[in-house]
């Protein structure tokens, strides 16, 4: 490989390497082929979604008029949003704890923290169901107004998401040079200022990655949600699961397509609104 130092093609400028771009493109095609299939099928007239029969927009109309589907989607988004915020904060705190302190039984503590990652989902789902019922929390939350009736599900989601966040943030913190922290304190910064101005910016990619992971986990969780939800608190995956076990209807594909479009549009807008000088993004 030629190692000329022309601007834009430095030795570390992997981003402009053709082979990496090609590989990247190939992986994207593989990732998105099924997604495009799904989008295409949302315009299919065949109600079983197995064979292409013709173009229609009916599925979108149906999805739009399907209150149950919309409610489920709304529930899912609300749960994922709240659970992600709580899980990211708690997870980051655990990561900081494990990174910064020595304490007795630390190895065991770490192991226990990893349990929610390790445990089969269904085991956790069943245990939470029994717990919520035996403590009366199920009964209590069923009668609450929205979104408080989602609290059981949010609690469960935080419980399995925050260890993921902790692990990701921690692997990020390992690369931190503690001299920076000392330098900051030497220069008279308080513990809090040091944390906020030195450590948090360094953690940021880990926080972003952890939050994305938590959001992904929460939004798509079926097993644990199935056991912790009630008739009034159906989420999108639970709804979809009961609908598609006997075949996907294009209506669901239409709803998913809308979800994709909303996400992309929201992100593009967010990117435009934010100044290009972003903190924490190196």
């Amino acid at each position, binding site marked *: 490989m030629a190692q000329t130092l022309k601007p834009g093609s430095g030795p570390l400028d992997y981003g402009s390497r053709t082979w990496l771009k090609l590989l990247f493109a190939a992986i994207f095609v593989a990732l998105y082929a099924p997604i495009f299939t799904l989008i295409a099928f949302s315009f299919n007239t065949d109600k079983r979604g197995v*064979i292409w029969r013709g173009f229609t927009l009916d599925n979108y109309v149906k999805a739009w008029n399907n209150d149950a589907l919309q409610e489920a989607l709304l529930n899912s988004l609300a749960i994922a949003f709240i659970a992600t915020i709580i899980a990211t904060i708690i997870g980051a705190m655990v990561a900081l704890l494990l990174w910064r302190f020595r304490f007795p039984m630390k190895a065991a503590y770490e192991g226990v923290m990893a349990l929610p990652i390790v445990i089969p989902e269904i085991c956790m789902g069943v245990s939470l169901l029994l717990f919520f019922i035996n*403590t009366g929390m199920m009964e209590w939350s069923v009668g609450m107004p929205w979104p408080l009736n989602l609290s059981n599900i949010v609690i469960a989601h935080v419980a399995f998401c925050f260890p993921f966040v902790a692990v990701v943030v921690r692997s990020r913190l390992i690369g931190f040079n503690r001299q920076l922290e000392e330098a900051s304190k030497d220069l008279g910064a308080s513990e809090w200022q040091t944390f906020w101005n030195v450590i948090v910016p360094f953690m940021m990619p880990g926080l972003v990655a952890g939050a994305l992971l938590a959001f992904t986990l929460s939004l798509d969780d079926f097993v644990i949600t199935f056991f912790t939800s009630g008739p009034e608190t159906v989420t999108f995956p639970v709804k979809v699961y009961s609908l598609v*076990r006997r*075949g996907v209807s294009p209506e669901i594909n239409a709803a998913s397509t809308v979800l994709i479009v909303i996400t992309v549009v929201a992100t593009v807008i967010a990117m435009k609104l934010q100044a290009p000088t972003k903190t924490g993004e190196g």
Partner: protein
Amino acid sequence: MTGYTPKFSRKRRSILQGLGALGLGLTFLPRNSLSEEEKKLNFYNWDTYIGETTLADFEKATGIEVKMDLFADNDELFAKLKAGNPGYDVICPTNDNLERMIKANMVTPLDHAKLPNFKNLDPVFQDAAFDPGRKHSVPYLWGTVGVGFRKSKVEGTVDSWKVLFEDDKYAGRIALLGDAKVVIGSALKYLGQSLNSTDPAMLKKVEELLIAGKKNVKVYADDNGQDLLASGDVDLTMEYNGDILQVMAEDDDISYVVPTEGAEMWQDCLAIPTGAPRPENAHAFINFIMDPEVEAGIAKTVQYGTPNAEAKKLMDKAYLENPAIFPPAEVVAKCEPALYLGEDVTKMRDETWTRVQAA
């Protein structure tokens, strides 16, 4: 019973409760009991298993708004209600699952005084071995498990379970259901036994049959055999009749048969789970479903057999003479319902099924 008094089964989870209360240190507000049931109903049902306007009609007639939540299979329904009822008023279990739920006190007895439409049912369905005197349930719809196949891809007539269990001609073009009870039951029928046989020697034979036939099986499908059939991934599948009927309507090349050895004849029932918040509404709903017009509307949509004699009178010939819905009498004579055989047999069958899948 008017107020909301959920009865969550309190079991021996004392550790859990003690620690739970300790850990929480919170007391949850008791629910206010309402003097009258609110105009709501939570119905836990299968997907695509209700008439197009049934729920809206019920709301029009009674002012009660029905919220229908869906489950994918009986195991899910059972698992969800096992520890306690999170708020469902009416459920729709299949007969053997219902029998298990009755034995576990997971459903409440019905008040037949509130179900005058019960008289519309075919007398055959007014009593049932799994629920003597219909104390806990009323029949909703019934059907069979048989063989769905693509006519152009099979030779001769399909009339035996043999095509699925030991016919090398169709190697790699077969889907079986992924449900231990149904597969083992059908295999027992093929071997000339009752599908409720609990004889370990017979079960061993079934295991050998299924393992030997495995090389021909492409997939154990999760109740989506009809899609695999429609898309051409398989040419023969073990499926519920209504599912195959739905694809038959779209594809003339697909057909359904109940093998001559007999098959499982199942019945989905309506019942009220223990701890249902609104039992009055639940009775009203169950009674409404047994109305001939309403039931006919449901049968038209979902294409399963109706147990309602009055409703049958409202159906057209195409439905009444469809052999996939009402198999010939000599085949029906060989069919039988699955019984709840007890936890030990369930375990034995689960182990058999695991060995078959792992072989």
